[in-house]
């Protein structure tokens, strides 16, 4: 096996050396025809409903975007969760983001119990293409809004993942804003 591993190193080589052959390559023309292999067609699906049995969530989903300052705009309806529509669709590769209010002016809102979720809890998302996708919670985190873990929440993933975002921590009455965000990380259930 050691010999095989050594062979791999020799085969893969050092990518920095690839440029050495560049001048010679100009004379070469690859055999025609050259085609693009069928890439997966753009999926026009969108998520339509999220259910989280462990905390009694069952909500249809509105599309969310960003405001002029670039911040994610939460749903206007406190009883409804929303999907960040410029990001991946839940079930497609990448971190799909759903956001919902923890409370309204009067009482609990759709994601009031989000911080009760524990690793292994299931989150189900129904899509407009009829697919139902099941996610399993991997962890629950809390970040101060001014130290929000942007790369961790929105950064690339190689598999389909889900983020559920709401508010947490102390409420600043002067700014009428919670100081923290609660983020639930989930990945496709196996």
């Amino acid at each position, binding site marked *: 096996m050691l010999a095989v591993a050594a062979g791999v190193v020799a085969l893969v080589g050092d990518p920095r050396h690839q440029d050495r052959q560049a001048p010679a390559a100009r004379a070469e023309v690859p055999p025609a025809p050259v085609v*693009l292999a069928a890439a997966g067609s753009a999926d026009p699906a969108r998520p339509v409903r999220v259910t989280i049995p462990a905390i009694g969530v069952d909500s249809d989903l509105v599309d969310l975007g960003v405001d002029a300052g670039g911040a994610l705009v939460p749903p206007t309806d406190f009883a409804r969760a929303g999907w960040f529509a410029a990001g991946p669709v839940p079930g497609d*590769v*990448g971190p799909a983001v759903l956001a919902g209010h923890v409370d309204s002016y009067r009482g609990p809102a759709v994601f009031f119990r989000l911080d009760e979720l524990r690793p292994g809890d299931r989150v189900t998302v129904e899509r407009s293409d009829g697919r139902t996708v099941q996610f399993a919670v991997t962890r629950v985190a809390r970040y101060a*809004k001014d130290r929000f873990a*942007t790369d961790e929440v929105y950064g690339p*993933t*190689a*598999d389909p993942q889900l983020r559920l975002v709401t*508010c947490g921590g102390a409420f600043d009455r002067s700014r009428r804003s919670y100081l923290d965000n609660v983020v639930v990380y989930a990945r496709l259930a196996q």
Partner: protein
Amino acid sequence: MARLTRGALLAVLCAGLAALGLSPAAAAPSDDTGLVRMMHLSPDTPSVDAYIDSVSDPDVGVVLPAVSYGDVSAYRSVPAGTYTVSARAAGADPQSPPVLASTVTVAAGTATTVAGVGRFAELGFAVLPDDLTPPPAGQTRVRVVNAAAGTPSLDLSLDGGTRLAGGLAFAKTTDYVDVPGGASTLTVGGGAQLPVQLADGSVYTLLVLDRDGGGLAVEPALDAASPGVVPVGGVETGAGGTAPAGAPVGRIALVVLTVAVLGLALTTRFRLPRRGRPARHAAR
């Protein structure tokens, strides 16, 4: 005594961290799994069954049956650790000696591509770490694998002359480069042009393959994806309807204020001069 002090310090530290939003949950490590996928990039190697087996735990492993030239498997989630990756002819007895084997270490939170490369006679595994760091805004990240035995030296460039591969030898892989996302034109070798669509925030491996019946096929494999537009900061998802009457700090301030006011009221009661008379110690 020292223990007590340390405990008190720890409590203060925890309180401080909580106040800063660094709750223990936030500091906890992500789940300890990584992702692995296989690519068959050897033109004259027949279909194989690929095995990914944990070195430390015989019960942990993945089998990818009947992987053929040009195939890219889905990523499979495995516990972080060291794995033996092996290939046997499709349908061969899993106990039979593999035609090729190597080891790969999968770290938590990473993604790794293991590609069977080269001609069958010199078949090897290339272990390609997949880049999961966010591309700059409006950019996409691309690398190229020359898996076309008939093209010993591959040139590939994108709109505007951005070179993705220059003189790339068969069975070799370039480093990733960041390029503008969106619709673009890929120029292959002498001048063949292909329209491609590379999404902002995504990461791709472009596989250049020998095509059945001659020529080349370029197959974009998606390594990872992220939103093309990344929101700034946190999200305002609460109106305060369930928040306690005041924040803890506010409540303490209220208590202090109340005591101060009461104390002031008590002292002033005894010091207040009667109306109409000058205070005893009033300045003249």
